[in-house]
């Protein structure tokens, strides 16, 4: 069975100017209980790779540079 990709707007936003993942920080990636934040290979910054968010906030609360914002997923808003 062939598989299609479908787009979705994700709730977690990372400000790439503030994010220091390219300098080795992985705090938000480490604390996510659902493991949905990964390094973007093109930019070296953190980003939300999978739309599987519990909007629980450790990524935002623990980010040392205040780069992460957790929004309410669109379906719930």
């Amino acid at each position: 069975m062939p598989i299609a990709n479908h787009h979705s707007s994700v709730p977690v936003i990372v400000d790439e100017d503030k994010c220091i993942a390219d300098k080795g920080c992985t705090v938000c990636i480490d604390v996510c209980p659902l493991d949905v934040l990964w390094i973007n290979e093109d930019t070296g910054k953190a980003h939300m790779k999978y739309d599987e968010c519990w909007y629980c906030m450790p990524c935002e609360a623990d980010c040392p540079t205040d780069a992460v914002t957790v929004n309410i997923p669109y379906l719930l808003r």
Partner: protein
Amino acid sequence: MKINDIPVIDTDVLVIGGGTAGPMAAVTAKEQDPSLNVMLLEKANVKRSGAISMGMDGLNNAVVPGHATPEQYVKEITIANDGIVHQPALMAYATRSFPMIEKLDSWGVHFQKDETGDYDMKKVHHLGTYVLPMPEGHNVKKILYRRLRRNRVQIENRYTATRLLKDPDGKIAGMIGVNTRTAEPIIIRAKAVIMATGAAGRLGLPTSGYLFGTYENPANNGDGHAMAYHAGADLANLECFQVNPLLKDYNGPACAYVTGPLGGFTANAFGERFIECDYWSGQMMLEFFKELESGTGPVFLKLDHLAEETIQEIETVLHTNERPTRGRFHEGRDVNYRQRMVEMHISEVGFCSGHSASGVWTDETGATTVPGLYCAGDMASVAHNYMLGAFVYGQICGESAVEFVKSRSEPKLDEAFITNELERIQAPMKRADGIPPEQMEYKVRRLVNDYLQPPKVTKKMEIGLERILAVREDVPLLCARDPHELLRAMEVQSIIDCAEMAARASLYRTESRWGLYHYRVDYPDQDDSEWFYHSRLFKDENGRMASGKRPIADYLVSLGEEKDAYRKMRVQKAANA
């Protein structure tokens, strides 16, 4: 030792799940015997995992001297649970409840105290006083993490367990699992295993349709229930579903335990109180459901009559602890507690003993029916256990496991079983196309909503079971593009197991009990002559899912004249606030 070129890791005590009960179990085992190897395996990262990743705003079942006795507590929970409880297990919790509060206090967890320095207890339950607020409860996980490091517990993050291992004489022997980022398998041989994998929270589908917008942390998807079942352990009372009163579309509780003592309450569309008591019980949920479906519905959280400073206090607690995005949710819809009531709804269904009574059967020592396997927290069958119960049973399991390990020689591993399990783990990534885990999960959870959600109807549940079994036939088509999708592919197989268990357990008990949790329309009455039993669900000798009855242990505390208190939940005449 190696099996299929995978090195076998040895430990004395293995704890699966690093949320609430798991860290307490691991720390307790090391406190009991620092010479033991104790390993804590966590699917996410123990720093922020489990039901309390962002902390907790209060203890919902604190038995504090001067406010309540263990006997009063055991009686209240027995009544709230329509008599189907294992009182020795409730009593073991109740007598250790206060010492655990003192232990947590000494570790730096802050509980609310009054002006004289006593714990500031609040009454939310129908009969007694058991709620202790924790306005600064956001740091619980940090405190637990520090204890794990100090006691030298070996932590393995980002591994999910997939099956438990047993040795030829039926005792627990360890587990097999997989790394969620690399897809590398892991085999652990252990002399005792404590499972603390939380609720089965990804069983029903939230009304928003967002797969991960569940009441429970979605990492708690019922892996432990499925693994215990496959290892031959008994599960109990699974038909006693968890259904909670939440904000509409948001997975936060309303939250009676925080707002109730400050004057907030659950109201109908006319702002009238319709339930006597906001404590989460099946009977309360049934009245909630009836109001929701009635001409005076839907149901609301009413705070707009409260003073400004009270509302500010409520906002501070509700918008910083446990579910801190709640304020943003309200902001997005322009909802302000001062101006209007907030719409509420019921949650999706799940298995969670923290709020109801279902789970892997555990006695007062934390033991399951598999020797050497212990369970604690939301997955274990001790009723209404909440966070403090998870801590207490984590402690009990830690002690029991250390005792079990003393006389245990090195377990023998079943290599053929391990080889088969490695194939099951590796299959989804070997397939180039097929069915992605997300689609299969959506389908099975949608079926749970359509056919198993109460009010339960026999014919509907039979159709639901048939359809769930049809989804199971599709499991060989599951495909995963990367290790993360493999994690979801393993999880959906546990979700299918739990959905089948939910259907079969619900069909087995031919009565109604626990209010909405097992409200069976074609068997509307509670039938104590036939069903004053725990229901059992287990894998029989032919490998089939079977049901049975377990007698209720003799009560330690008799119920007396208050035995029907939870049957009288509806306000007789609406009283305006």
